[in-house]
């Protein structure tokens, strides 16, 4: 026992130290967003008490900006993109895992280019395309781009998973006269864990993106939460209450999603990286 005690203690010490480093900045922001301006500066590490508690920052936020719109925009863009990614990628993955046809390998390779090549590098072309389609400053521009961006990894993860499904079930359904479309619908529930992983790994890059909202949809009506926060933080840079409140509100949604989806997220990150 003695020989195991010190290494374990040292390991805990390192991990606790890192946990502090990881969480401290986040706590500091949330904590101070509820304090009055004087206390933010005079006692930044103190907890907010009855006499220092204030929601001033949040009030500035509500009156000075349209965070509720931004939030709904982000929600709509993220949810629609995820739905599209799941539908089209699971269909493609089904075809690639189920049928032998001449272009199978080539199609897989073609789709996997996007795993490594960042879609951002095509931004000049994307902007031109969106201008021609009259989609600039619409949420659809974002949804289509995020769907295209999410397809490669989603197809890869889902294909890998679908290949492992036993053939018996599908063969039995075929003997019963089920169409190929019906078989696809039949196996969808069987790949639920993989769908969870795809959802979890695709969600955060879409929710957190700044690049495409900035370029394709910077208008007031189509701002996402992250772009809205970025603009607001720039405008109110010296109003610490408002900045801290905005940061707190922007931190909460991903943390909330993370708490719900952390298992799928971890599985997804590792599943996407096995090969």
């Amino acid at each position, binding site marked *: 026992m003695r020989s195991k005690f010190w290494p374990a203690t040292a*390991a*805990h010490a*390192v*991990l606790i130290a890192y946990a502090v*480093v*990881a*969480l401290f*900045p*986040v706590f*500091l*922001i949330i904590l101070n967003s509820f304090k009055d301006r004087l206390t933010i*500066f005079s006692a*930044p*590490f103190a907890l907010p008490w009855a006499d220092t508690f204030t929601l001033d920052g949040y009030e500035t936020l509500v009156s000075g900006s349209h965070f509720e719109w931004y939030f709904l925009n982000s929600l709509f863009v993220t949810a629609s993109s995820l739905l599209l990614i799941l539908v089209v*990628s699971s*269909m*493609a993955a*089904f*075809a*690639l895992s189920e*049928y032998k*046809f001449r272009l199978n390998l080539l199609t897989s390779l*073609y789709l996997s280019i*996007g795993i490594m*090549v*960042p879609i*951002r*590098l*095509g*931004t*000049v*072309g994307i902007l031109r*395309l969106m201008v021609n389609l009259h989609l600039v400053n619409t949420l659809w521009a974002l949804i289509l*781009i995020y*769907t295209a*961006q999410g*397809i*490669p990894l989603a*197809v890869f993860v889902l294909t890998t998973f679908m290949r492992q499904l036993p053939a018996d079930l599908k063969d039995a359904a075929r003997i019963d006269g089920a169409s190929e*479309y019906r078989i*696809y619908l039949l196996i969808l529930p069987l790949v639920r864990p993989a769908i969870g992983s795809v959802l979890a790994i695709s969600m955060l890059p879409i*929710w*957190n*993106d*700044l690049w495409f909202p*900035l370029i394709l949809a910077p208008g007031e009506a189509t701002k996402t939460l*992250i772009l809205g*926060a*970025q603009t607001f*933080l720039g405008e109110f840079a010296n109003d*610490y209450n408002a900045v801290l409140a905005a*940061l707190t509100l*922007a*931190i909460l949604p991903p*943390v909330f999603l*993370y708490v719900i989806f952390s298992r799928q*997220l*971890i599985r997804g*990150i590792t599943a996407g*990286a096995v090969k």
Partner: protein
Amino acid sequence: MKKRGSFPVHILVFLGPAVLIYTAFMIYPLCDSLWLSLNNKASSGGQIFVGIQNYLMLFSQDRWSAPFWNALRNNLIFFVIHMVVQNPIGLLLAALLASRIRGSAIYRTIAFTPTILSVVIVGFVWKLILAPAWGISHALFGIVGLSALGEYPWLGTESTTLVTLSLMSVWQNIGIPMMLFLAALIRIPDELMEAAKVDGASGWKIFWRIQFPLILPTVGLIAVLTFVGNFNAFDLIYATQGALAGPNFASDILGTFFFRTFFGYQLQPADPFMGSTVAGVMLVIILVGVLIYLFGWQRRLQQIQF
């Protein structure tokens, strides 16, 4: 009813939507952008094919080459800092978590938290913490008796801004190598380590002689993911320092340079042709990194295994 060799319509139906969306909104714009990089504005107002002239201009004409080489150099430093700070710490955390330490799930969840936050948020959080005006960094450096360092404008000084931004990015992204290393370490069968332990090997020795060689594929994967991520980075610098990547372009990397070039900023007009050219160079850099990984690293590892 099905005839032999009949056209497999259902395959087209299944593949169609994904291939169409992916082609229209990812592959086509990429190709369009590469094509634009071989063109430039004609004096008549339209566009004219100029071959690789834009690239030559980017590399050698002072107006373009000075900011380009500056951004490329900064980007390399940005990448090196990630490789020597982020990935070793990620490995250390993963090795500790893989040792079945009590509470490892909680530690893992906490260490991954910064990774889920938006880069914009991370940028502002650290900007506030490092701001001499607030005094947080003053107090933190004070703990180790160096409170004078807390007064230093880490982000506002040319010589320190890039390193500071890199470390902010490291803080955020450490969760990714940690998770990937952890997944690889957990897959190693226990018997291997048990056998070595019976032979009296220390934990240190077991790690470097048995576990580390077995996770070499993951080391390569993390290196290439870091490479691609870093040479495509933009958000953190933009959120913290703005499109001008100040002070005096000291934190300018390829992503911010690309943005200013094609989108325009202040007095510089938007230039889609030169913007595409910058993107073309970034694409080549990223492809070279990926190819080195696929053919240099993975191939070699496979040869060792056989």
